[in-house]
């Protein structure tokens, strides 16, 4: 009987799920001011559920997410501001729990690396372009220079060959 009731409830919930997206958290919380309500909504959207990993605590119905929502509500009512609630959660669950990681010596690379890669790519491209330009302007000179060198070498070689032939002949005779 209990299971039938649960199943019915599930079906009803699912059929309303599409319209309920904006109001994910099931608890009905009371707040003393609009500002508190706003802070609560903001916090539950940016706190990450430590159990289900890729959901914020507003979206998740894991036990720990429900507990964290209740705690957030309690702390907001006690007059905690956004940063104080965040610190409370980070004290317990680590930086993992906040969707905005702090900038420190490890995470700074997330921002630096793309910029560095862009700069490196730009410099590389610049160098390549300059090399190509230099190649173009110097190519004819280089070509003629190597040609004359090759001709000189060829002349030297044939000269030497003549010498050898000469010596060979003179010995034989």
């Amino acid at each position, binding site marked *: 009987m*209990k299971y039938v009731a649960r199943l019915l409830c599930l079906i009803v919930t699912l059929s309303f799920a599409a319209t309920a997206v904006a109001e994910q958290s099931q608890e009905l919380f009371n707040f003393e001011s609009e500002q508190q309500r706003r802070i609560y909504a903001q916090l539950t959207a940016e706190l990450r559920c430590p159990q289900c990993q890729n959901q914020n605590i507003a979206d998740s119905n894991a036990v720990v997410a429900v*507990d964290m929502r209740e705690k957030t509500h309690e702390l907001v009512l006690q007059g905690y501001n956004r940063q104080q609630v965040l610190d409370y959660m980070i004290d317990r669950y680590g930086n993992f729990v906040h969707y905005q990681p702090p900038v420190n010596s490890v995470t700074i690379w997330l921002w630096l690396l793309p910029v560095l890669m862009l700069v490196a790519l730009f410099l590389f491209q610049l160098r390549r372009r300059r090399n190509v330009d230099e190649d173009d302007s110097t190519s004819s000179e280089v070509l003629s220079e190597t040609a004359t060198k090759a001709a000189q070498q060829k002349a030297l070689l044939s000269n030497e060959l003549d010498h050898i032939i000469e010596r060979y002949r003179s010995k034989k005779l």
Partner: protein
Amino acid sequence: MRKTLFYVPLVLFLGLSLFLLSGLFSDPRERDAVMVGKPLPAFSLPDLMNPEQVWSPETLKGEAFLLNVWGIWCPTCNAELGYMSQLRNEQGVRIIGLYYVLPEDPMFGEVFDLAKLQVDVQSRLQAFGDPYQFNILDRQRRLSMDLGVSGAPEHFIVDAKGIVRAHHIGDINPQVWRAKLAPIYQQWAGKP
């Protein structure tokens, strides 16, 4: 120069492959151990079987122990009861349970019934093994939240002065115990 440049894409590719490969073996549940090095948070909670007995950080001091967050609703917790009993009996590991109560849903007529819970826990421990010196009942899950517990099973190693020395998310099996937890436990328990 040109020759070294030729190898740059290969090196980049190998580096990226190794980085991604290491990701395949990392545990996504692994988080920064925030609690490690800190004293146990303040609490005052009843014993599960004997509610007149109240436990607090002071009453637990004196000997290092393994704090196991668990519940009979959690299949993995039940599965590790056997191995942890072995640890208690063969290696003398002091194991204290922190019983994690699931919230009841009044809409379905669920109410917290301590007597029924005690009976259920007792029969579960008889069936699978009882590794616990005693169990602390965390009905509101306040201590669990202060410890940064995200679910069950989770384990903490606490030294004789009440300082948390390790936080392990997930079950304890022979491999995890030998590779990760035993060295830390032995270091703080002062046993061979």
